[in-house]
């Protein structure tokens, strides 16, 4: 039998024990990395979005250099792929997908949702974005707005800077961050009050 066809759990245990024995990867390192990865969440991205909504110079930084903007928000980006930010406007709505695999701005938003990695999403997002968004998320993008699908094929990881909804005038950053969801930063939904 092809050794690669071994059940994944058994492969993991065997590989980890070999790597530990060789002094390459320790149990402690794995535990620590899990903790760091678990700590990233869409809340980090939401705080960046909220800040961009109230601070025009931060918004400009986010659009010019997403990586620097993430670092300014306290997110560790050293060794991470560059972050690109796509701004939704009255004319353009962005939707992010990785048709080839599952590239996602993990350092900022945490683990990608399962649906983002699914064959259905990867196939349909790029070819029928309006239908997909309406059918699965009840998100309807008006005809007058261009839907721009961004396929993450190379080194960048992309997130959406959604449009600030009406009815949030005078809100502070914390309150604004509270209405920004994971899907808003991928483009399958838009923030609502």
């Amino acid at each position, binding site marked *: 039998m092809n*050794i*690669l*066809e*071994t059940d*994944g*759990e*058994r*492969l*993991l*245990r*065997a*590989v*980890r*024990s*070999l*790597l530990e024995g*060789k002094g*390459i*990867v320790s149990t402690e*390192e*794995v535990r620590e*990395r*899990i903790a760091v*990865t*678990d700590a990233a969440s869409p809340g980090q991205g939401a705080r960046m979005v909220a800040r961009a909504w109230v601070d025009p110079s931060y918004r400009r930084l986010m659009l010019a250099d997403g990586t620097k903007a993430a670092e300014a928000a306290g997110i560790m980006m050293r*060794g991470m792929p560059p972050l690109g930010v796509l701004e939704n406007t009255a004319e353009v709505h962005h939707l992010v*997908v990785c*048709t*080839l*695999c*599952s590239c996602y701005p993990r350092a900022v938003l945490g*683990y990608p*949702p*399962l*649906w983002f*990695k*699914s*064959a*259905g*999403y*990867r*196939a*349909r997002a*790029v*070819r*029928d974005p309006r239908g*997909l968004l309406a059918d*699965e*998320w009840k998100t309807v993008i008006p005809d007058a707005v261009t839907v721009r699908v961004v*396929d993450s094929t190379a080194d960048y990881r992309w997130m959406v800077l959604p449009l600030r909804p009406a009815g949030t005038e005078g809100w502070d950053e914390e309150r604004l961050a509270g209405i920004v969801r994971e899907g808003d930063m991928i483009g*399958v939904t838009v923030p609502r009050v």
Partner: protein
Amino acid sequence: MDKETQRAHHDMGGVAKFMCETVDIEPHGLDDFDREVDALRQLLSAKQLMSVDELRRGIEAIPEGEYHRLSYYRRWMRSIADTLLRRGVITEAELRAALEGA
């Protein structure tokens, strides 16, 4: 020749047979296996033992049927093992022995 026929199987953008699949949009947490595999990949990358490009290549090399049958992180685990063997970080003999011992 038609592009859909010529494509590699993981190259799924716009492919008709996947477009009809309903997308389960419910949140699903990661289990311990998933988290460990994810952490392991990050560590191997940081230690320059496996790039994300090698991870992807290893996943793309999984035969089509298996690719769809395996869960996301099981594909990763298979690719991690494949890459470490190719790179000579571990040998097949060592891996067989470790599997038997487990």
